[in-house]
């Protein structure tokens, strides 16, 4: 007959040890900023597992690419050619508009806006914690990604980089309950802060007095305040506005312009001012 637990500390002692260590870990991780450095290494250590979990979908993708028919491909190419033609035509006027804008800004004495460096990142098919809205992307500190970096896609703001590993990083979506992004209403430049609600398709805009001129359908764009998100990217549209007598603030809700539940490709932005 084998001894049940063999040598070593008793079961109760082990549990006590595990509980103490994990509570210490939880507290340091939540409160000590310097712990992010440790996280980077740990995060890098487990990223092979994430790549492994991502593999089935990658295989499916490449398979569906393989079995595409010739006519499908031809159709796609034709559609893309047309789109490229259109966007080129738009760019023609864009160039002169940019010049004009620059001249006007110079006249007004406001700082010139520069193009930001961007990089495409793909979302890895990896699941996350049910309490926070995060996605994992396939770029990390080796690509120059840094914590707090703004992330957008072709429609608007998606979120910001939350923690970085060497080859993967986590992006906190704007709908996360702990996320807030400074915005302004495109129509009349009213400033506000859009808080995540914990639901993927809703942002809350708290602390707006009832006299604020805001209505359903207004587009919110980043205001550039706070210095984290570059100015002018669309964030959300107002879907709900209500004021109840007696309450100090109006109840305003907005829907993100990006469909946060079906993201695929993202753009990492390096704003001019905070290049690292």
């Amino acid at each position: 007959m084998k001894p049940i637990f063999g040598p070593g500390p008793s079961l109760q002692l082990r549990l006590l040890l595990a509980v103490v260590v994990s509570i210490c870990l939880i507290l340091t991780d939540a409160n000590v900023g310097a712990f992010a450095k440790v996280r980077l290494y740990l995060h890098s250590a487990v990223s092979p597992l994430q790549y492994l979990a991502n593999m089935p979908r990658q295989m499916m993708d490449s398979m569906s690419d393989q079995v595409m028919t010739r006519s499908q491909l031809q159709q796609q190419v034709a559609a893309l050619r047309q789109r490229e033609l259109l966007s080129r035509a738009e760019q023609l006027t864009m160039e002169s508009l940019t010049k004009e804008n620059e001249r006007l800004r110079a006249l007004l004495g406001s700082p010139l806006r520069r193009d930001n460096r961007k990089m495409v990142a793909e979302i890895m098919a990896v699941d996350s914690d049910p309490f926070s809205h995060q996605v994992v992307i396939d770029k990390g500190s080796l690509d120059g990604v840094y914590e707090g970096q703004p992330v957008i896609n072709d429609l608007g703001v998606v979120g910001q980089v939350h923690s970085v590993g060497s080859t993967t990083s986590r992006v906190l979506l704007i709908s996360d309950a702990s996320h807030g992004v400074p915005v302004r209403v495109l129509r009349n430049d009213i400033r506000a802060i859009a808080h995540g609600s914990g639901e993927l398709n809703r942002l809350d805009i708290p602390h707006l007095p009832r006299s604020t001129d805001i209505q359903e359908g207004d587009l919110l764009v980043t205001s550039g305040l706070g210095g984290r998100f570059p100015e002018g990217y669309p964030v959300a549209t107002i879907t709900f506005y209500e004021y109840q007598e007696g309450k100090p603030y109006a109840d305003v809700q907005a829907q993100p312009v990006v469909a946060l539940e079906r993201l695929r490709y993202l753009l990492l932005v390096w704003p001019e001012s905070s290049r690292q």
Partner: protein
Amino acid sequence: MKIANSRSVVSASLFIALLLTIIPLPLGVDAYRPDWLLLCLVYWTIALPHRVNVGVAFTVGLILDLLLGSTLGVRALAMSIVVYLAASNFTRLRNFSVWQQAMVIGLLAAVSKLVVFWAEYLVNVVHMPENYFHSIITSVVVWPWVFLLLRKLRRQWKVT
């Protein structure tokens, strides 16, 4: 030789359970994902309590925390507590029928989910999703099959 063999079987099954936990599922099905890691850990705890207990649970929970990007230590805490409960009652659990065991698994899964939520609630702004506890049901339903599969593995590879 034998020890190396049994270690590799246990760790391989835990590894696969980890992968199953982070493989993405469609949004609607995601809430019903069984708690694979908990099932696997509890099986090995009942079967080989001298080999798999609190220490292993803590380590694996920590890895899961890293993979899911939650506050570090939350799942390590939950897994340690659950495995402690299983390990301190392993003789009783072994003698239960599979369906009785499944009920116990349901309780353990509920404990782990509650601990995770409380720990997150203490340090972060979190909202409990409405379907947060639904996965307990799937864990209970899946247990007999996990049990049979792992038992077959254990007997085939003579894991002790």
